[in-house]
């Protein structure tokens, strides 16, 4: 296994981008966007995660099979989180007794 060797400058750039995005995340959290705060935070986090996966984890230079495997993982994670959120979002549909009225 002798993979692609990324230049140091690329790693530094990605690191700086991640740091900047962290600051942006913190900054965005203090702005009142209503329910969109959560969405913005998750989009930024998703982008940061993509940078790490793509460059630090070398998926960019990996085979198509590896990329497919990564995509499969993300896909199933989305299914699991989706089902979880369906359950969470539908909690109020029934009039079950709850500690909070």
């Amino acid at each position: 296994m002798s993979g692609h060797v990324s230049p140091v400058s690329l790693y530094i750039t990605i690191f700086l981008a991640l740091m900047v995005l962290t600051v942006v995340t913190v900054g965005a959290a203090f702005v009142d966007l209503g329910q969109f705060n959560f969405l913005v935070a998750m989009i930024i986090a998703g982008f940061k995660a993509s940078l790490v996966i793509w460059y630090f984890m070398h998926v960019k230079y990996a085979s198509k099979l590896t990329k497919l495997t990564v995509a499969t993982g993300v896909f199933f994670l989305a299914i699991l989180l989706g089902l979880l959120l369906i359950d969470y979002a539908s909690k109020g549909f029934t009039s079950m007794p709850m500690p909070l009225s």
Partner: protein
Amino acid sequence: MLIGSSLTMAMAVRGAQTNKRAATVNWLILTMILGTVFLGVKVIEYADKFEHHHVPGYNFQWAAAHEAPAAGGEHAAPAAEGAAAEPHRELALNGDQLQLTTQIYFSLYFTMTGLHALHMIIGIGIMLVITWMAWKGKFDAEYYTPVEMAGLYWHFVDIVWIFLFPLLYLVERHT
């Protein structure tokens, strides 16, 4: 701290890829140091939570819940302080309810950060072995798979934190 340690980890893999044994070992050690500092901060954080009775369970105590008007049997008394601080939303939780709901948050907080910290401790353990192997000169540009794998694991732990950080530390901060 963790993003920095991801950088040093990537540099360690690069060191192995380019036949630089000393560089690999040094970057791995630096990665472990950054990881340990992160865990140290976590320990301070946890100690602080214990101090303030923010650990869910018998001794859990949320200060705001006691500043709020005493609820007693009636669940009508709203937390005046909370409502005044956040006029645009209806926060009509009394002390007991605040006590309950904040406990849910701290349960999630401790489960998720605790599990993450456990993964980091495992990661540092893996890295100790990898560092030792790299020190013995077991890796070169032809064979560095274990370093790469340890790196993948470390990056994964970093990614989890990228999501946990806004979820646990920045929720509802704007209010």
